[in-house]
């Protein structure tokens, strides 16, 4: 205990002060390792740990892994790995020293006592490091391989630790150790503490203790904690599924929201909608090719670019084809479908049939860890947020701006709008361009999730129509609800049915739902006559 404390104090002091110690001193200290008795080695380890030297980690780990040798001739410490009949040598800084015969070197043997010392030494080094994240992960790695000897160490660090996050983790580690090795009271309080902890080591420790525990009172506490953990685990799994569902819903929403404009508001069946999404995704690719040095920024540039590209294409389609087909939805459907084939082939001819590699910026990768079970990946999180931003912007545009007013006027009563001086054909073109442009934005987002290839749009067109029809045509809010419902339903069904069957079930559900409510969930009220 006392030596530990000494070491600790020495180390803390060293971390702060002594970066400038000469390498020779370390070598001096480490030379004890080549001695024969284990006492020599222990003393050497203690002496080595006085220095804050990167070689400590290499040497100690090497000893643990039985890879630390010394060259018989000059007693230099080396890491040796077997390669055929001879050994490959590297020094402790990682420099290669070539190949030698087995007879030239000698392994530094360790016994259990030394091993313990080494382990605590390694953990000490990591735990006392300057970086908070490194300390945190050190505790986590200790948790994966819990040993009773770590307890004093952990308790010392608990006192010295300044970061609340690391301290909390240390307390958890302490509880795991005590659960196995403490007295009755300690075990009980540890069991209570570990209830609600989601990391796998904590859960496993409780389960282990559950089968080993003799004391009835402690066992009751353990049982309670285990039950609580199981419940929390289920809850977290459900939350994870919900998250996946919401992110799928957000993807569907992004894909469908442009359609909600062109189909929902204008009544135009645009089967080439998926290709507008694809164009957006390809625009992202092109933008990244144009600014290779600024991948982080590329998405920010790609969003308006994709809006313009797809939007311009939309205006072109409206002026070139769709305006001749108003009032004939089935013809519109066929013509735009033909157009989708042309666009697919166009992209295939220009970029080739293979998928293009769109790079994911750093800030979109990684995940937000809530606890040991639940981790929310950033790209999905951003897509959820982004989809709602897009919908909100669209809603504002349609309901608060003059342009939106014109759109609504034209869709409600074209003749009257014309009489009031609105150029309805211009509004048509702009509205269609808007819907297509939003699809292009969706393409930017989707380029981060799926493969960018000529068939990208095809995969989303049926889903998009399902969302719009399910939500109720002409209703932006309905589209949001429908997308989220379908996304979540799909993901919640997946654990029970598998991905493909879940999708089939959702499709069948929508087909049946449309029989029941042909106008979708949020149909517009009013008396209507078909034909």
């Amino acid at each position: 205990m006392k030596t530990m404390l000494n070491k600790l104090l020495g180390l803390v002091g060293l971390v702060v002060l002594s970066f400038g110690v000469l390498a020779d001193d370390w070598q001096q200290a480490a030379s004890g390792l080549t001695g024969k008795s284990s006492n020599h080695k222990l003393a050497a380890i203690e002496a080595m740990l006085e220095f804050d030297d990167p070689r400590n980690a290499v040497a100690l780990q090497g000893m643990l892994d039985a890879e630390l040798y010394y060259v018989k001739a000059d007693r230099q410490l080396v890491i040796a790995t077997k390669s055929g009949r001879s050994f490959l040598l590297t020094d402790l800084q990682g420099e290669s020293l070539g190949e030698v015969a087995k007879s030239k070197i000698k392994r530094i043997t360790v016994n259990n006592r030394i091993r313990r010392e080494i382990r605590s030494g390694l953990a000490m080094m990591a735990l006392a490091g300057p970086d908070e994240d490194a300390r945190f992960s050190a505790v986590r790695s200790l948790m994966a391989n819990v040993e009773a000897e770590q307890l004093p160490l952990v308790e010392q660090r608990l006192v010295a630790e300044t970061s609340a996050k690391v301290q909390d983790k240390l307390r958890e580690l302490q509880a795991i150790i005590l659960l196995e090795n403490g007295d009755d009271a300690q075990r009980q309080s540890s069991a209570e503490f570990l209830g609600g902890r989601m990391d796998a080591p904590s859960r496993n420790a409780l389960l282990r203790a559950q089968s080993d525990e003799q004391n009835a009172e402690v066992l009751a506490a353990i049982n309670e904690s285990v039950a609580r953990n199981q419940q929390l685990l289920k809850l977290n799994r459900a939350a994870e599924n919900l998250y996946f569902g919401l992110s799928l819903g957000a993807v569907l929403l992004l894909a469908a929201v442009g359609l909600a404009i062109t189909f929902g508001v204008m009544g135009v069946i645009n089967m080439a909608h998926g290709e507008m999404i694809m164009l957006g995704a390809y625009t992202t690719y092109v933008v990244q090719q144009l600014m290779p040095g600024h991948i982080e920024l590329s998405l920010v540039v790609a969003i308006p670019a994709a809006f313009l590209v797809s939007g311009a294409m939309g205006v072109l389609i409206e002026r070139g084809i769709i305006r001749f087909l108003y009032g004939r939805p089935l013809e519109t459907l066929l013509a735009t479908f033909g157009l989708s084939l042309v666009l697919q082939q166009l992209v295939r001819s220009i970029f080739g049939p293979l998928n293009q590699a769109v790079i994911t910026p750093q800030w979109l990768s990684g995940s937000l860890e809530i606890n040991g079970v639940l981790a929310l990946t950033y790209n999905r999180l951003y897509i959820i947020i982004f989809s709602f931003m897009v919908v909100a912007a669209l809603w504002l545009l349609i309901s608060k701006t003059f342009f939106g007013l014109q759109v609504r006027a034209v869709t409600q009563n074209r003749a009257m709008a014309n009489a009031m001086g609105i150029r309805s054909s211009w509004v048509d073109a702009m509205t269609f361009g808007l819907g297509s442009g939003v699809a292009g934005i969706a393409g930017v987002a989707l380029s981060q999730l799926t493969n960018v290839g000529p068939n990208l749009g095809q995969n989303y067109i049926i889903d998009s129509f399902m969302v719009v029809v399910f939500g109720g045509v002409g209703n932006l809010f309905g589209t949001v609800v429908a997308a989220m419902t379908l996304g979540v339903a799909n993901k919640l069904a997946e654990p029970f049915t598998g991905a493909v069957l879940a999708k089939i079930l959702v499709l069948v559900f929508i087909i049946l739902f449309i029989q029941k409510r042909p106008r979708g969930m949020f149909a517009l009220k009013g008396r209507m006559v078909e034909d």
Partner: protein
Amino acid sequence: MSRSIIVSFLMRDKVGNALLAVLLALAIIVPFCSLVFEPGDTFYLSSYWVTLLGKYLCYALLAVAVDLVWGYCGILSLGHGAFFALGGYAMGMYLMRQIGERGVYANPLLPDFMVFLNWTELPWYWQGFDMFGFAMLMVLLVPGALAFLFGYLAFRSRVTGVYLSIITQALTYALMLAFFRNDMGFGGNNGLTDFKDILGFNLQHSGTRAALFSLSALALAGGYLLCRFIVNSKLGRVLIAIRDSESRTRFIGYRVERFKLFVFVVSAMLAGVAGALYVPQVGIINPGEFAPLNSIESIVWVAVGGRGTLFGAIFGAWMVNFGKTWFTGAFPELWLFFLGGLFVVTTLWLPKGVVGLSAQLSKMRRSKAASGANTEAPVQAQAVEAEPQPQQASQVAPEPDKQAEPTPKNLDQGAANV
């Protein structure tokens, strides 16, 4: 009495009669050319060509089925490929059972893919498919039953127009996903293939192929006659009335959904027969046949040929497929441009298809003569000339005005919803 009606119908449809004659002639000549002549003769047809022409006949039958519902009843089904594929799968299951011990695993009962998946028993829905009669019954019943169920639900709740198109597309998409699954017991991704013989005749023999071709020609002729009988009957009149104005027909007192259901089921069965004839000729059926694109392609055959005329559908299927064979051989990368362009051109400028081209041209000439040389008229005028289509469901729009001024009023109907 009824006989004389049939006779008079036969007299009336001159192009159709010529077509029937051609089909009968083909049914005799093609096998003759394939079997009697030797390779190298001028008139020799290799089995590649026999199979290819047989495929076209099956497609034509599918096109007739699509035309029956779309051209005559206004139901734009984007899922007819599903019925075609289901008929094909029923036939494929029969052919699969015929393989018996000649499979790779030599299992007398189970098809190879089931042995591969470690199945020990034949699933219940594979029972009976070793009997040809039962399998042929299923070729009709399975697509028919699905069409009945789907149509019953959809037409009863008055799902029409674009909504119907979209859910039929969802139907075939869902079926495609389902058939891709191995657990379904239909061979998953690979589908059913490696067929050996049909009714004891080796499928590789040119004689069997020629017989299948003749059968396809006869089936197409039969399908044509059946559809012509339907559309020329009183029921056919009602169908056309439904196409032109569904609500009006309903208000007059017809049970619109029953007529639609009938014609939808008949059409699905025809599509099933087409699929069943298709599979032994091409030698494989896989879930790709359910792909939404296939269904839409069959729509474009009808549109190009001229919907609302049964022979137009057949011509369309032949023309487009011949174009496809030629294009995918000569310029594979241009095929989709061509197909897509065909969609656009047909809908914009050929509302009645190639068959309606002559009538369209003469009408144009007359209107030109009447109104002087108005150069802007053609495009828009033609767009309006199209027969009135069932309106998109949520429209409040009035009956489309056929003779009206082109653009403004037509625009009205398109965007009058919401």
